[in-house]
């Protein structure tokens, strides 16, 4: 027989290093859980998988229509509103959609957790799968909007260059901040269902406190620091917009945002890893 793993079960929760090692051992589970979480949404619906595509597109169409035809917003970026809006929204949506899913993923996978061991931290990470699908879809939508603007104006609204790489940290930042808030709320949602509704409402209100539908210039100069200080998503959305269509970027606020983001993320992971050991009694 090949080398047999030795499992040691202690009353004390495992060390963080051991926990991270087992995360790697069980990496195959991530794909399985992601698939289950994506399919879970489709189960029992008429449109099935198409909901994954429909859900993010509906607010896009509504918001673009509202702020171009009903109440036009001046973006001062020299690009059509639809391009301006989507350049920030694709990153924002990662945050909003992940917050939508994360509190529910723990309850969804409860029956699996009750009968099999695997590092529970895989659940919130697998919960990002539908979000990443939505993101890919919104990227396609953005490409369509850019190409149609190019075709009608004769001028490419996208700034092609090395700055496009800025989208990568923006996406990672949004995923991290979503996990930061999502992981503790997913734990609490096991005790109280209210958490799911609360976090969903919170996410939709939070969007209007972040320069997504409007440019940051809408906020008076003297209050802007408050938005950046208390809302890490503001700088992340700005970074995403800057990398795609250009504009101003305040490096100081950006650094502040990422610093807060990383600190909160580490705290949140630490909380989850500690709570993990005691979740078994609750399932």
């Amino acid at each position, binding site marked *: 027989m090949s080398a047999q*793993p*030795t499992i040691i079960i202690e009353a004390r929760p495992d060390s963080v290093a051991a926990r991270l090692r087992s995360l790697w051992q069980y990496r195959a589970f991530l794909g399985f859980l992601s698939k289950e979480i994506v399919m879970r949404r489709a189960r029992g619906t008429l449109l099935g998988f198409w909901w994954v595509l429909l859900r993010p597109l509906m607010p896009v169409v509504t918001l673009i229509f509202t702020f171009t035809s009903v109440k036009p917003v001046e973006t001062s970026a020299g690009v059509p509103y639809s391009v301006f809006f989507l350049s920030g929204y694709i990153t924002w949506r990662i945050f909003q959609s992940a917050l939508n899913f994360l509190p529910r993923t723990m309850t969804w996978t409860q029956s699996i957790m009750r*009968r099999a061991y*695997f590092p529970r931290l895989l659940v919130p990470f697998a919960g990002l799968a539908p979000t990443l699908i939505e993101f890919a879809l919104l990227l396609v939508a953005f490409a369509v909007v850019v190409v149609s603007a190019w075709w009608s104006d004769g001028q490419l609204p996208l700034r092609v260059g090395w700055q496009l790489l800025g989208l990568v940290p923006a996406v990672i930042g949004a995923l991290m901040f979503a996990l930061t808030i999502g992981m503790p709320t997913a734990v*609490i949602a096991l005790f*109280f269902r209210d958490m799911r509704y609360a976090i969903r409402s919170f996410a939709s209100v939070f969007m209007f406190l972040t320069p997504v539908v409007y440019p940051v210039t809408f906020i008076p100069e003297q209050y802007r620091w408050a938005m950046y200080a208390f809302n890490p998503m503001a700088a992340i959305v700005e970074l995403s917009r800057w990398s795609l269509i250009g504009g101003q970027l305040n490096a100081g606020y950006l650094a502040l945002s990422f610093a807060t983001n990383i600190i909160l993320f580490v705290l949140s992971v630490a909380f989850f890893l500690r709570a993990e050991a*005691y979740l078994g009694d609750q399932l």
Partner: protein
Amino acid sequence: MTPARVSVRNVSKVFPRRKATRVRGIATDGWPALRDLLRKTIRREREQRREGHDQLWALNNVSFDVAPGEIVGIIGRNGAGKSTLLKILARVLSPTAGHVTIHGRVVSMLELGIGFAPDLTVRQNIQIQGRLAGIPGKRVLASEERILELSGMTPFRDIPLRLCPSGSAVQLGFATMMGLGSEVVLADEVLAVGDTAFRKMCEEQVEAVGASGVSVLFVSHDMAAIRRICSRVIWIDRGRIVQIGPTDEVVNAYTTELLAGRLLPLTGETLAASCRLLAARLLDENHAPVGALTITNAGYLDCLVRVSRPDVTALVDVELWLEEHHLFTVTSPPIEAPQATTFRTAVHIPGDFLNEQQYQARFRVRALGHFDPAGAPTTATEERLDFRVINVQREQSVWNEWTGTSKGFISPRLTWRLSRVQ
């Protein structure tokens, strides 16, 4: 001497007993449970190791070893801590104290038949089951043929599970667990479901994997099966190991104790010694002890009553509860005896009557016409028996609900009449 495959050392598990608080009319234990969790995670508060009324010691200082290839039976009454022990070994629960060392992979059958996707093919389902057991995909593929052969489903390999004969899910689950090639198998009440042929198949497979060097921990209420396949038995009562040793010795001691009624009831207190409830069990339609009933088959709620005075007439009340709902009460015919006698009485639960739920039967013995000074009828002893009713007819989804279960406390099969109105 071969080193132990599984060694359990001084393992204890404490569950806090929390009172459900009422928040806006809805009973919930959410707040105290969440407070507990936050205390432990944020303030690193250790669980208090004191025996108090607010704590349930599901396991208390349990130690034993299992050698490779050994089939160890775990017996004990409902609530004795058998399932908690298996859940700790499966790492679903973490122990409050003590430690466990396991050399090898563990496959657990804690809830057999759950985790199947009816729309996927048999082979895809084997993959899912293997993943759930933490076995890498390649290894699962390698043992696929063996699993198909064990479950007798080779002709159905590429057919969606929902089109397979009924009961396939359970059969496949069992075969998958046995065929995955792990070093340790944990089986909780796997024989409680399925027909005689299925049970026979299960027993044969357990013996076969035992012979091939796999260690099996086997929880069952079926003493006959335990005698047939186990080489050693651990008897647990109220979280402690009562006896551990060769099968016949321990099973005999256990059944003697059960019949003599020396086991203290889990709950309730003895107010009158004149009539006592000794034990309560769930039997299937063939009068074999089980932990669950299937939805279509009948069963019995069976109990032992000792009546020790000639002037006392005893009655057994059986209340059936579903969560906090009291569904009904049935009362036995009067029991009388000229001298101290132990009686066995059972109430028949028809098939197609209970729904797919977790029920609790509360057995109570009272002395007819005897009242205690406080004015309440004498309640000699109360015994609570939790049991499940499961459905093996329909296939189960990957998630915890059945597809298309009928709702309600019970699901009787009633007759319909249909006539045309002119």
